[in-house]
């Protein structure tokens, strides 16, 4: 059974701000993040026929938003986006480039798992559904991501 337009709109209105944070972490650009959320939800509407209710609707939409963010990052010129660019931070955010650098060193799967956990508060099953991985691997992925991030932050800050 697929998702109704009303259900998708409800997720958009109640969780939109969290999805923007997820996309901002992914793209490194506020405008691109908002664009990714709009496009991600539009994709969810267009593809809602394929949602089978075997996982949460939010997890399914998160996948749409992450894919949209990924596509935006892949075509920076057309979108005017410079993802994760250190010079995009303002002068009073001196530690933001360091954080981005530390995050960028993580494997993509670890990054996305961290983002889904932190910005959307997803449980292991939802993270697994979003990323298309086994639930049993989520805990280890998150643990490794947090450990690597801490190490990377020490390095780039030190």
């Amino acid at each position, binding site marked *: *059974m*697929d*998702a*109704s*337009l*009303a*259900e998708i*709109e*409800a*997720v*958009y*209105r109640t969780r*939109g*701000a969290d999805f*923007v*944070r*997820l996309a*901002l*972490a992914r793209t490194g650009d*506020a405008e691109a*993040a*908002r*664009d990714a959320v*709009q*496009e991600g*939800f*539009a*994709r969810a*509407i*267009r*593809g809602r*026929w394929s949602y*089978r*209710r*075997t996982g*949460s*609707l*939010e997890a399914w939409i998160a996948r749409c938003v992450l894919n949209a963010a990924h596509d*935006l990052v892949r075509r920076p010129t*057309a*979108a*005017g986006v410079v993802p994760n660019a250190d010079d995009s931070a303002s002068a009073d*955010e001196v*530690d*933001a480039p360091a*954080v*981005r650098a*530390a*995050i960028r060193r993580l494997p993509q799967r670890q990054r996305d798992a*961290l*983002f889904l956990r*932190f*910005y959307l508060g997803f449980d292991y099953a939802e993270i697994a559904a979003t990323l298309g991985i086994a639930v049993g691997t989520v805990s280890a992925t998150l643990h490794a*991501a*947090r450990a690597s*991030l*801490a190490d990377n*932050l020490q390095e780039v800050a030190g």
Partner: protein
Amino acid sequence: MTFADNALDRLAPATPWEPDWSDVLARAGDRRLLSRRLLTKRRLLIALAVLAAFAVPLAALAAAKDWWFFRFGDFPRPVRAPVVVKEGVWSGHPWELIAYPSTTDGLCLAVAPKGAQARGDGAAMSCAPQIGVARTPETKASPDMTITFLTSSAGDRLPGYIVGPVVEDAATVVIRLDAGTALRVPTFGGPSSVGHVRFYASELPANGGLPPGLFGRRFRLTGLDRGGNVVACLVPATAVDGVSPLSACR
């Protein structure tokens, strides 16, 4: 908050966000509007275009065989034309239930406000392979279901509701809500063009414990024949690929 959490908080701090659902709908309905470069300049125009499109009364759209859901680019194509299966009134709000068999997604159902003031943005739609509706070579591989549902929480144009198709043996559908209440709804038939199925439709009580997208473990749909036997069952919390065995509802 851990060291890593602090880093993630700095990476993407919470910022004010203004939802723009009209823009999402416009993007979903017309790929040509996706040019991000033009989006800012066109944003107002897009919103107005969407409102204008949805402002057309559904009756007029029906007459033109141009249903609102056909405006979405990836809607399942109909095998036979959509038909109005049922009309009714929920808490003073006229509504209509529309159905059609699709080439790829089984039976499609839509609920929309009815009347001169009706607009497509108060409507919702859902599709699923259903027992009693002929499959096509393109129908998705997911199994046929004995009962499915389309539901929405209360909005500006309609109260909360739940509707769906069920196997044609079902005379009654029992809807058990998360709040613990159960609704007993008689089924009704539709035109033969939509298949050998019956339908049910019910307004949901306020605070019925069925928020959109969040179905708890107690939510259950049971189809009963005239003898009270279970002939259809769906328990979304435990369903596998959208299907529950009849035993799950006994």
